[in-house]
């Protein structure tokens, strides 16, 4: 569960988040879409407690993981060490760490990459490592800041399908930002259109989504609707 209750964040005089309120139920995936500088990343950073809010209240499950833009893998650690780092910080026993990491890596099909360094991985592989690093911490909430922005179209679509699989399997709540209307429409149970630190529209998507959903009329109509709402929010 994630709840923002009249949350305001100011950078100097400018309000990055302006009395922002929303509620996300457990197990839902929500995308936030909006033009650059509308406050999307501030919202994620605020939820991740990386920045303090000036007013309002944030209620969120304490067990969360962040997947930052660009993944932030440590280039001097191999895949295994990157994934186990969070567990090491939490002082988990080494054998338990190895077991948990291998389990997650197998689930994401990256166990063969365990000794490789991030610079030698493709964008898609790095993305899976970042997801594995988040999942191994056993979170109930995942916060993602433009997680697929650096991937090519095909890899991006595969990564989106993987994220839906993970979400359905682990029943996690996911809050993510994106610039892609198609991505937001495919992934989201709920879609927040954001402008100037506020939510201008909230759109629900109760369709069952799998890899055939992209060819459906509903998906097509949804993308048109979101584009219109986004344009309205930019004009406003």
């Amino acid at each position, binding site marked *: 569960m994630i709840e923002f209750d009249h949350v305001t964040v100011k950078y100097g005089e400018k309000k990055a988040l302006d009395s922002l309120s929303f509620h996300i139920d457990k197990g839902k995936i929500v995308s936030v879409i909006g033009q650059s500088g509308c406050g999307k990343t501030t919202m994620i950073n605020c939820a991740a407690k990386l920045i303090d809010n000036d007013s309002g209240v944030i209620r969120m499950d304490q067990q969360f993981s*962040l997947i930052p*833009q660009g993944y932030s893998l440590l280039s001097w650690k191999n895949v295994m060490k990157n994934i186990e780092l969070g567990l090491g*910080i939490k002082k988990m026993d080494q054998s338990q760490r190895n077991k948990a990491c291998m389990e997650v890596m197998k689930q994401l099909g990256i166990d063969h990459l365990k000794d490789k*360094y991030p610079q030698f991985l493709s964008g898609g592989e790095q993305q899976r490592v970042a997801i594995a690093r988040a999942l191994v911490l056993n979170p109930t909430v995942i916060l993602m800041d433009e997680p697929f922005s650096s991937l090519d179209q095909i890899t991006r679509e595969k990564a989106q399908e993987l994220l839906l699989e993970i979400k359905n399997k682990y029943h996690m709540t996911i809050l993510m930002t994106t610039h892609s209307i198609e991505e937001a429409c495919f992934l989201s149970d709920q879609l927040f259109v954001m402008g100037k630190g506020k939510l201008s529209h909230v759109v629900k998507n109760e369709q069952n989504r799998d890899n055939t959903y992209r060819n459906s009329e509903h998906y097509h109509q949804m993308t048109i609707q979101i584009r219109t709402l986004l344009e309205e929010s930019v004009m406003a």
Partner: protein
Amino acid sequence: MRKTIFTALSLILLILLWYIVSFLADTSAIPYFHQVIRHIDNLTLKEILLNLSVSLVRIFIGMILVVIIAVPLGIIMGLNRKANEFMNGFTYLLYPIPKVAFLPVILVLFGIGGMTAVIMVFLVLFFQCLVSVRDSIINVDTALFNWMKTTGATKSQMIYHIILPSIVPSLLTWVRVGLGTSLAVLFFAENIATDKGIGFFILDSWSRIDYMDMYLGIIFLSIAGFILFNLIGLLEKRALRYRKVIQK
């Protein structure tokens, strides 16, 4: 294999160049390469190796002292804006001054001896190291720190997992550059402040018009440099194996 061939080729070219210069100069001040090599005997070899090892120990101690002081200071400057702004004044005022200008002061303070040579190495290398460490920390992607914070990492865990590994590449570059610089400084300092060291040996041989010893000193200095640079290269290859090398 290719590296060995190129090294051998460089060596042959250098010796050839030496012969050309000796032939053209036609003076006892520039003897032929084979004459210099023939001059090696046990006593000279022992003397050169002793002086060389004295110089290398001085460099080593100077560098260790720099690492002990400049690395923590550079980390503080890299992580703390106020500390950086405060220290910038000292750094930018003292960094541009040729440290050799301090030699008379160091001589007054520490007298003639090895300590003065070590202090000179320290002074020359200190700011190079400080600035490298500080800059490599400033350039670390803040997203790495943010991610670590969300896992509940403490400051010391962040220093261990992010800061220390991120300064390794610039530290290795500093060691490589600093080695050459400190040899040059020692060459000067050892002549004024000491009666040992390879710099002293070379210039002392020159002043005694013993050109054979002088060239032998230079040759051994070059061999020592070659070995050390290659050792640093190996260390770099091992420590930075995570990096994709641009060179094919």
